[in-house]
């Protein structure tokens, strides 16, 4: 009895762990909007480069800013850019994907080749190009990451939607005189929503990673607003003197990517009946 319970718990472990980590990060980001231990941009040169617990929970950076507060506000900044970018990519990509699935032939081919072209550009490269065009900032990061996500969602959606289109209930809807747009809204989207949500979760982790990369290069949100990527970049100089400056944001990034990936995997197991049967 307890063995069965344990194995069920073990099967759900990614979901539980991923959900817990994700909830912590989102909670931290939300709390940072109403309370932080210190103002994250307040410099106190007398207290610079203090270690964890010596000053505040996680210590201070080279300007004496409170690392805990910076990390918390950084969570909000990273997460909001990642969420907006994934929303942009998911909406545009899903629209392209369901259109491609509904309209086989030339339109399908054109959309998928367009996605191939988009896919060929690394996110960082397109962000540098966009940064040159629009100037660095949060919007640049959102657009650069979002555009990079479009082909991912277009492909996932197209293959899932194509499977739905092959089902008899879609044939029945066609026999009832429904058009492609209506069938997509009423039958295709409800049946692929789960797969899209899984993909959104996994892509959120990737978006946080990419956002950190862009901030590291100075293409993310403008200073002095704290971001995990820039905290890492600033920490390079003090890597031997104050390794915690790099470790703190590094662990935060790694944990959030891990959290979203675990949550995505767990959701997929929960939604996909084939995997559920295998478990």
């Amino acid at each position, binding site marked *: 009895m307890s063995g069965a319970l344990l194995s069920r718990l073990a099967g759900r472990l990614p979901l539980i762990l991923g959900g817990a980590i994700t909830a912590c990060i989102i909670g931290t980001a939300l709390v940072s909007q109403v309370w932080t231990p210190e103002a994250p941009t307040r410099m106190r040169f007398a207290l610079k480069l203090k270690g964890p617990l010596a000053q505040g929970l996680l210590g201070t950076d080279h300007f004496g800013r409170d690392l805990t507060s910076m990390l918390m506000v950084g969570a909000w900044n990273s997460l909001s850019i990642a969420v907006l970018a994934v929303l942009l990519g998911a909406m545009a990509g899903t629209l392209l994907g369901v259109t491609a699935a509904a309209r086989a032939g030339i339109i399908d081919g054109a959309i998928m080749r367009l996605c191939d072209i988009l896919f060929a550009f690394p996110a960082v490269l397109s962000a540098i190009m966009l940064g040159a065009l629009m100037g660095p900032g949060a919007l640049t990061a959102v657009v650069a990451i979002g555009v990079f996500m479009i082909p991912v969602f277009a492909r996932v959606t197209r293959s899932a939607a194509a499977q739905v289109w092959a089902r008899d*209930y879609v044939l*029945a809807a066609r*026999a*009832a*005189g429904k058009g492609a747009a*209506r069938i997509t809204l009423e039958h295709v989207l*409800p049946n692929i929503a789960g797969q899209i949500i899984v993909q959104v979760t996994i892509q959120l982790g990737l978006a946080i990673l990419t956002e950190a990369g862009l901030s590291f290069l100075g293409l993310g949100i403008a200073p002095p607003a704290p971001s995990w990527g820039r905290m890492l970049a600033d920490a390079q100089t003090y890597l031997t003197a104050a390794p915690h400056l790099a470790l703190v944001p590094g662990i935060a990034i790694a944990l959030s990517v891990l959290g979203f990936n675990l949550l995505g995997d767990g959701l997929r197991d929960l939604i996909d009946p084939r995997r559920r049967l295998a478990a």
Partner: protein
Amino acid sequence: MSTPALLELCNVARDYPVGPTPLFGRRATLRALDGIDLKVPAGSIFGVVGESGSGKSTLARIVMALDRPTAGNVLFDGDDLFLLPPAALAARRRDFQMVFQDPYGSLDPRSRIGRTVAEPLHVVPDALRGAERAALVGEALESVGLKAADAARFPHEFSGGQRQRIAIARALITRPKLVVADEAVSALDLSVQAQVLNLLRSLRDRHGITVLFITHNLAVIDCVADHVAVMYRGRVVETGPAQAVFARPFHPYTQLLIAAEPSLERIGRGLRRTPSAPPSAQIEGGGCAFLARCPLASGRCAAEAPALRALEPGRASACHHAEALTEGASSLHFPT
């Protein structure tokens, strides 16, 4: 066939491209339907029987205007379906509905039964809405032996037979003139098959609905159909009243089908082996399609494709040697 035809197919053909697209020239085609002529009398249950790959499902899709024929006309109640403008065709769809083979695939798992059953009302301009529509759905569910309250449930809560009843309720909601049932009972247990067949028959008796019943199962056709058309490789090889055709088949293929039907009397003895040939992808030049498997094959059969011709009132066969079969009940002996 004195009653007027509700559905008439005139020389309908359908080619499907198969294989890779060559750089130059045309893709190879598979002729799924080849010169189909059928008249389905109003108010009858018309069986179409044939083995896998004989073009039965293609026929269903074309009758439902889900697929266009390469050639020929489909007349439904006097209108050529494929000459109607799209809006008129959509409006016409209320008069012909379909029941699919797989009751697990034909109901949207995310859609409540009520919504699924009401779906065909989409093309009915003066369709009821709100509470009146719900009442209509409940009525349709009750007419197939389910409860009106089932409208709020999801497909996974029902068994295969119940799902097929739901599919039939969906097909009946617009009070159609024609219901196309494509292998509608093949996925069901025998006892459930009988329930669904009885349901179809009683619907015909009560509402005068015409049913085009497509199956590979002779016993099912024998049980419900008034008329039958036997298909082989995209052609109709024999038509006639169902009982007469099964009692005295006029085509060697029909005889082969009847002989291959499992029966209680033969339990434990195994089936006779009959020569079979896989469906070929290419359109064959000349000759009878059944040639390779036919015990009556002669030189004429290799040279000239037999046309469907009337032999007795209401009965037709596409065999050069049909006369040999009409005389007496001499059954053919297939080589073992």
